[in-house]
């Protein structure tokens, strides 16, 4: 029994976001973090390990420095890591990314009893598409927006959030879940984990390792192959500054404006 967790290293958009003159993101000047929803996915996998003793494998696609994030996740309790990295993968959209990750997961191997955990969405793209698309490629049932989960005898029961409530959904393993950060409170790295994190195995899957997998079509990956392309990217204009109300009677001024515009 395995828990495979897909994670992404993202620029920290909660802080200052730097934009290049050409409208692209100035990633070099920004701090990176593990995507918050993905940390919930890692924690869910670690809790499954606490409960069943299963192996936890963290997988990411990204440039070589993403190894640092994977080592941190090992220090939190993951048993091993897979870094999917290759120039051919760069610029992939969600369709392309999901093929590559599905092939990587296929190489790790998915069997009865296994659960694939993903975060609901990454804060840089906010698409929420890669999880379901991996599930489709691997022919796994999916449960998205998971806010509570129980795994018993190879059956997953999950609370799936809706805008106006929730559904309780059941699926047999192997299956794929996408987790929201309300699912749990991620644990910290342990001292022992930090000591051991460089002695645990980390595999690197490059283009050659995955290109012959039946789940990958080599002509629909990367920037050129991706079905969707960025036609334009731009920054929204700053709205002109409004009026600052001043004086002792700002409240009365404001009420006067609302009355004059027939808004009250």
């Amino acid at each position, binding site marked *: 029994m395995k828990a495979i967790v897909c994670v992404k290293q993202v620029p920290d*958009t909660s802080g200052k976001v730097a934009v290049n003159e050409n409208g692209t993101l100035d990633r070099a000047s920004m701090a990176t973090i593990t995507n918050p929803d993905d940390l919930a996915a890692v924690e869910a996998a670690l809790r499954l390990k606490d409960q069943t003793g299963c192996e936890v494998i963290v997988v990411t696609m990204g440039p070589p420095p993403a190894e640092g994030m994977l080592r941190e996740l090992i220090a939190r309790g993951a048993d091993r890591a897979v870094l999917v990295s290759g120039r051919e993968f760069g610029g992939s959209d969600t369709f392309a990314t999901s093929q590559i990750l599905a092939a990587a997961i296929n190489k790790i191997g998915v069997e009865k009893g296994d659960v694939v955990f993903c975060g609901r969405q990454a804060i840089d*793209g906010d698409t929420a598409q890669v999880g379901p698309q991996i599930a489709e490629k691997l022919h796994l049932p999916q449960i998205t*927006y998971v806010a509570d989960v129980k795994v018993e005898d190879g059956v997953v029961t999950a609370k799936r959030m809706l805008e106006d409530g929730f559904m309780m959904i059941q699926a047999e393993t192997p299956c794929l879940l996408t987790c929201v950060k309300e699912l749990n409170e991620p644990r910290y790295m342990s001292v022992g984990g930090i000591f051991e994190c460089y002695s645990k195995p980390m595999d690197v899957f490059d283009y050659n390792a995955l290109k012959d997998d039946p789940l990958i079509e080599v002509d629909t990956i990367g920037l050129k192959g991706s079905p969707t392309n*960025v036609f334009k990217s731009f920054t929204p204009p700053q709205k002109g500054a409004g009026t600052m109300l001043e004086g002792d009677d700002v*409240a009365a001024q404001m009420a006067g*404006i609302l009355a004059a515009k027939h808004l009250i």
Partner: protein
Amino acid sequence: MAYDCTDTAAFKGVWVFCEQREGKLMPTDFELISEARKLADELGCELSGLLLGENVEGIAKELGGYGADKVLVCDSPLLKDYTTDAYTKVICDVIHEYKPEVFLIGATNIGRDLGPRCAARLHTGLTADATHLDIDTAKYMDFLRTSSTIDVDSQKFNMEDRNLKMTRPAFGGHLMATIICPRFRPQMSTVRPGVMKKSAFDAAKAEACQIVKPAFELTEADCKTKVLSIEKAAKKMVDLIGADVVVSVGRGISKDPQAGIKLAEELAAELGGVVGASRAVVDSGWISSDHQVGQTGKTVHPKIYVALGISGAIQHVAGMQDSEMIIAVNKNDMAPIFGVADYGICGDLFKVVPQLIASIKAAKAAE
């Protein structure tokens, strides 16, 4: 003829997935049909709604009132409640048969589960959570003139381009990106609820709307997940998207969150509106997440938006900048919220809001 997702010329028509819950259409269905009508007119093609459920034929014609020429209805007890597998199978089978050029899905929690699964199976691209759509290049250029810092007239555009241009916020609203899917069909996008404007209902068009019942096959064995129960949230959710006035609170209420929220409620009641909140307030557990405005919350465009003690992080601004009038109250005169506000009041919300309530009451009494 065999289905070939790269044979772009073989695909015709604009489709909208019309989501129903408990046999009722979702508000976003009407928004999407209204917007898709414009796209279909620009392409010179038909607009069809796609409705899945059990005994839902009766609600289909209403979609015609917002612009659908046709509604394809797939009726089955196995489609009563949404499941990824059943809906994906039926939708992909019907798309294989009819080959629409454009397929739009509301970016609800269900739409965002369904869209990626369908796009992967159909072997096509999918844009997430679009907030603006164009076919016509001249219209797209007009959009860029008002919504971007691009010097549109210094750039070359192909005026013959008939690809769907799908614009969405990225990096928490710091950047906007226009996405195209030139090589594969259908061109798919999920569309953010509350952003597209619903057109006026036309009863004659609703009556004229044609109902089509495509053939499909679906058995229980196709559904790998089982819905055990569906629970509605215990308390009534706030209708932020439909509200004319939204009074939102931010971190500025932290010295007494309950009192701050109460003041916002009083002001909202006086203006005939509802209470919204920034992410910080929701994350602190002071108010439930259905109140959240912004990139990860809801997008609103009320007549009046009042921001109380909200600094104006771009993720929040992304969800409210299209409000007709923005009033900001903040202690910090350098707060970015004043950059988007029409009227700014620099002061402590705990002092300003009671005065504002009193002044509005007085102004109303004077009328």
